[in-house]
């Protein structure tokens, strides 16, 4: 356990940024936190969490996959991948940190997605325990401890500074590189901070929420439930929930004709979109109720089926706060799980 005094926080950031890119939550012009590259003078946001999740660092909204040069009848395939530079993401919350494991379970299983892997290998994740979880938080439902997040390094905010604990080799290396700014820390302070967080967590409205009614093996039981219709009735079919979700990982692959060649890129896609399953000879999910069902069944049943019961949700609460029509995974899980 190391300690970083409040006064040295900026030096600490500067020290990291001197060697690699450092990203941390910074308030944007509308007062919401975004992960932003640190430069001298950048101030870390006090917000509980960022609007967009930290998944962007490993699975960005768009990325170029390859290029094609077309000449006459010929096609030249150009692998435009480059080795990613090292970077550090500071201030990731427990929920987002847990989401990386979910993304890994998709992107790092065979066949490995090299684009993702490249970034994952070069990124060091510094998490920060939550001090004041909000009413939309329900990470506890998935056994995630907001007071003890995973990551390469875990940071706790304490009265006069920050407590840091390295969890991995990458984390050790980061702390070693900044060792001259750190002092030895006392576990006690961390425990006190954790106790405070856990106390708040327990009082929040979603404390004690369980997803027992949904999960592994419930495909047949849940798929034809009539509640899907009412739940999805007001769904706009936008991609807000998907795009703010730290675990949603669907993507589309598209070609862009630049006039001088073709760029093939991928971008986030949403199973809520009407064209998600559209193909030349029809669409297998024609109505919003089917698409809505797919998203939640995937997170609540299909994903757990493939991954030893782990849900495809980390309880970050972004969709609860952001859905234009206030429909979300908690309402869905409660409705489906409640009336057995």
């Amino acid at each position, binding site marked *: 356990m190391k300690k970083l005094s409040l006064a040295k926080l900026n030096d600490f950031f500067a020290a990291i940024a001197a060697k690699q890119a450092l990203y941390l939550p910074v308030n944007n012009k509308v007062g919401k936190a975004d992960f932003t590259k640190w430069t001298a003078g950048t101030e870390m946001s006090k917000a509980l969490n960022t609007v967009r999740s930290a998944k962007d660092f490993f699975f960005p909204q768009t990325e170029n996959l390859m290029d094609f040069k077309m000449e006459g009848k010929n096609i030249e395939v150009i692998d435009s991948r480059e080795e990613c530079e090292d970077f550090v993401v500071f201030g990731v919350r427990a929920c987002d940190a847990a989401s990386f494991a979910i993304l890994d379970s998709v992107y790092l299983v065979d066949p490995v997605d090299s684009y993702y892997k490249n970034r994952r290998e070069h990124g060091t994740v510094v998490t920060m325990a939550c001090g004041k979880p909000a009413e939309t938080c329900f990470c506890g439902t998935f056994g995630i401890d907001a007071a003890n997040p995973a990551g390469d390094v875990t940071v706790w905010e304490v009265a006069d500074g920050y407590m840091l604990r390295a969890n991995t080799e990458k984390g050790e290396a980061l702390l070693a590189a900044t060792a001259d700014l750190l002092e030895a820390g006392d576990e006690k302070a961390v425990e006190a901070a954790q106790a405070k967080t856990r106390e708040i967590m327990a009082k929040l409205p979603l404390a004690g929420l369980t997803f027992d009614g949904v999960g592994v093996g419930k495909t047949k039981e849940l798929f034809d439930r009539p509640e899907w219709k009412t739940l999805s009735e007001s769904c706009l079919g936008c991609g807000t929930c998907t795009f703010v979700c730290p675990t949603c990982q669907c993507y589309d692959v598209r070609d*862009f004709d*630049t*006039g*001088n060649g073709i*760029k093939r890129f991928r971008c986030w896609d949403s199973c809520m979109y009407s064209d998600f399953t559209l193909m030349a000879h029809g669409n297998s999910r024609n109505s919003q109720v089917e698409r809505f069902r797919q998203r939640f069944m995937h997170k609540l049943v299909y994903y757990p089926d493939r991954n030893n019961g782990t849900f495809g949700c980390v309880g970050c609460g972004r969709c609860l706060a952001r859905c234009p029509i206030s429909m979300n995974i908690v309402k869905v899980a409660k409705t489906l799980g409640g009336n057995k």
Partner: protein
Amino acid sequence: MQDVKEFRPTIVAFCCNWCSYAGADLAGSSRLVYPADVKIIRVPCSCRVNPLFILRAFQRGADGVIMAGCHPGDCHYTSGNYFARRRMTLLFSMLDYLGIERERTRVEWISAAEGAKFAKTMNEFVATVTALGENKRLEDLRCKK
């Protein structure tokens, strides 16, 4: 070392078939010179010009876009240029609102008899856009070499 090349803008001119395209023909047959940077696209009427085309031109590398049609009241289709005028007024105002240089877009009414006006307008427009320099604010970097 490569020489810094003099900036030559790419200009797209949408010309209605009945007046302005004919005006361009007259400019041509009168041997009225205007820069080769101007490339004309023939459309049946100025009202065929979709704002999408204008944005598309900027995306693909145009530095200026000009739309030329019949004088108001002289539209071959009676009202096309009136509608086009409203559309372009609003579009240009919006581009301006977004901070995109207003001088990169222009509408001019040029009749089939106004070859001289055609050439003059194009000369002016090329000069204006050249002075503005490269289109940076509505560029799509993917389309650059």
